[in-house]
C-alpha cells in the first residue's frame, strides 16, 4: 500500500465512524428528547395523550391524596393553571406541598398526567431551574426563590428523585 492509499483508508474509516455516529445522534434526538412544560403550556398547546414530557410547577397545597398501594395524586400548579398528576410509588423525601417539583410522564386519555418519575427540590433554597424559569416568565416569581439559586451547594446532588 502506498502512503496515499494508507491515508485514504484511515480517512475513509474515520468518515464511516463519524457517519454512523451522526446517524445515531440524529435518530436518538428524534426519539428520546423530552420537552418541558408547565400546566399553562399544557392548557394552551394540545399535547397528545401518550407523548412523554416533563411537567414542572409547584405542588398545589392541599391537593395531595394518598390512595391504596402507594398510589398518589396531586396537582402541579403554576399560578394560572393546575394539572392533576397520578403517580404510583414512593415520593422523594423532599416532596412537599407548596414546593417545586418536576414530574416526567405522559397525559392519559382523560387528561391526567401519569408520572413515572417525580423529582423534588433539595431544600427551601432551591427550585428546579425549569420551574423557576417558567414561573418567572409568567410573573409568579417570588423573592424567596430568587435567593434560591444563589446558595452554592457543593458537589451535592440536591435533587432527589423517585421513579418506578
Amino acid at each position, binding site marked *: 500500500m502506498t502512503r496515499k492509499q494508507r491515508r485514504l483508508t484511515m480517512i475513509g474509516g474515520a468518515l464511516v465512524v463519524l457517519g454512523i455516529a451522526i446517524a445515531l445522534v440524529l435518530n436518538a434526538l428524534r426519539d428520546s428528547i423530552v420537552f418541558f412544560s408547565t400546566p399553562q403550556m399544557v392548557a394552551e398547546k394540545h399535547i397528545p395523550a401518550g407523548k412523554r414530557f416533563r411537567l414542572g410547577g409547584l405542588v398545589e*397545597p*392541599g391537593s395531595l391524596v394518598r390512595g391504596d398501594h402507594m398510589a398518589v395524586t396531586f396537582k402541579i400548579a403554576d399560578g394560572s393553571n393546575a394539572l392533576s398528576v397520578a403517580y404510583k410509588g414512593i415520593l422523594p423525601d423532599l416532596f412537599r*406541598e*407548596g414546593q417545586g417539583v418536576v414530574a416526567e410522564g405522559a397525559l392519559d386519555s382523560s387528561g391526567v398526567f401519569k408520572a413515572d418519575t417525580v423529582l423534588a427540590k433539595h431544600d*427551601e433554597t432551591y427550585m428546579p431551574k425549569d420551574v423557576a424559569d417558567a414561573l418567572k416568565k409568567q410573573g409568579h416569581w*417570588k423573592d424567596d426563590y430568587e435567593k434560591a439559586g444563589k446558595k452554592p451547594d457543593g458537589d451535592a446532588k440536591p435533587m432527589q428523585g423517585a421513579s418506578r
Partner: protein
Amino acid sequence: MSLWFLLALMTVGAIFAVLWPLSRRTDVKREGRESAVYQDQLAEIDRDIANGLIGETEGAAARVEISRRLLAAADAEEGSTVSSRLRLRRAVAMVALIGVPVLAGALYLHLGSPALPDFPLTSRARAPVPGQSLDQLVAQVQTHLEKNPTDGRGWSVLAPVLGRLGRFDDAAQAFRNAIRYDGDNAARRAGLGEALAGAANGVVTAEAKAEFERAVALDADEPKARYFLGVAAEQDGRPKEAAALWQDMLSKAPPDAPWRPVLEAALARVGAAVPAPSDSASAKIPALSNDTIASVQGMSEGDRGAMIRGMVDRLAARLKQNGDDVEGWLRLARAYMVLKEPDNARAARDDARRALAANEDGLRKLNEGLKALGIDG
C-alpha cells in the same frame, strides 16, 4: 507576632523565591535531554529482544528508527545555544523586589480587612458579646435545641419568636416539637397553624386549617385560631360565614382585647357590620403585631393597604404624644418597611431617636432593632 510582621515575612519569602534562581548559575548540561529518552528506548529494544518479546528483524527495524531520532535529537542539542541576559535578569529582580510587594499589598488592602480580629468559637463561648441581636439569641437557643431536641419548653419559647422573625417553616417545625415534647394546647396549635399559613404566604392551607380546628377543639375561645378559621372561610369564598364568626368573637371580646382592631378591619373587608363595642376599645392603642401583619398578607392588595394604613396612623399618633416606647417605635418603623415606605421609616427612626434621647437603654435597644430592619444608618 503581629499580622503585619507575618505578612511582611511572607512577602520576603515570595521575593526570595524569584531572586534565588537569578542569583545562581545553571548548569545546562545537567538538565534533562531528549537523547536520554531515546537511549533508554534502545536499551528497551535490546531487553525485549533478549526476552523474546519481539523478533530480531522487528527489533533491528525499530533500532534503526530510534537511532535516527536519537541522532536528530543529539544534533538539536548540540546546536542549541545559551545566552545570558544580565540586564533582563536585573529587570526581573527589580520587578520582584518592587512589583510583588506593591501588587500584593495593593490588592490585599483593597480586598482584605486587616483590622478585624479573629473570632473563633472558643473565644466566643467565653466572652458573650454585649448587645446581641435577636437573631443571635435565636441562634443560641437553636444550638441548645440541636443538642437537646427533647427540651419542649425551649421549643415553646422559640416557636413564636421564629414566627415573628418571619421564619415560618422553622417556626412550624418548632411548634410541632413543642407540641410533641411539651404537651398539646390550643395556643400552640393556633401558633402552628399561623406559621403554616405564613409559610404559604398568608393562605390558610388545608394543613393550617386542620391545626386551627384542633386548637378550637382544645379551647373553643382561642382567638387566633377562630380568627384564622374566619380567614379560611373568607379565602374559600364564604365571606358571610367569616363575618358571622368574627362578629361573634367581637361581641364576646373583652373591650381591651388587642386583636379587636384586626377583627374590625377584617369585617370591614368583607363588608360586614361591626358590632358596637361594649366599651370604648380605642382607648387603648392596639398592638400592631407581626401576627397581624402576617395575617393581613392574605388579603387583597387594596384592603390590606387600607387596614394597615389605619393602624399605622393610629400608632404614629400615639407615639407622637407619648414617645417613651421603644417597642412602639420599632413596630412603627417595621410597619413602614412592610408598606415599602422607607422614607417614612427613616423619619420614624429620627423621631424615635429624638424622643428616646434621654433613655440610654432604650436607645440601644432601638438601634439594635433598627439594625435588624436595615435602617440603622
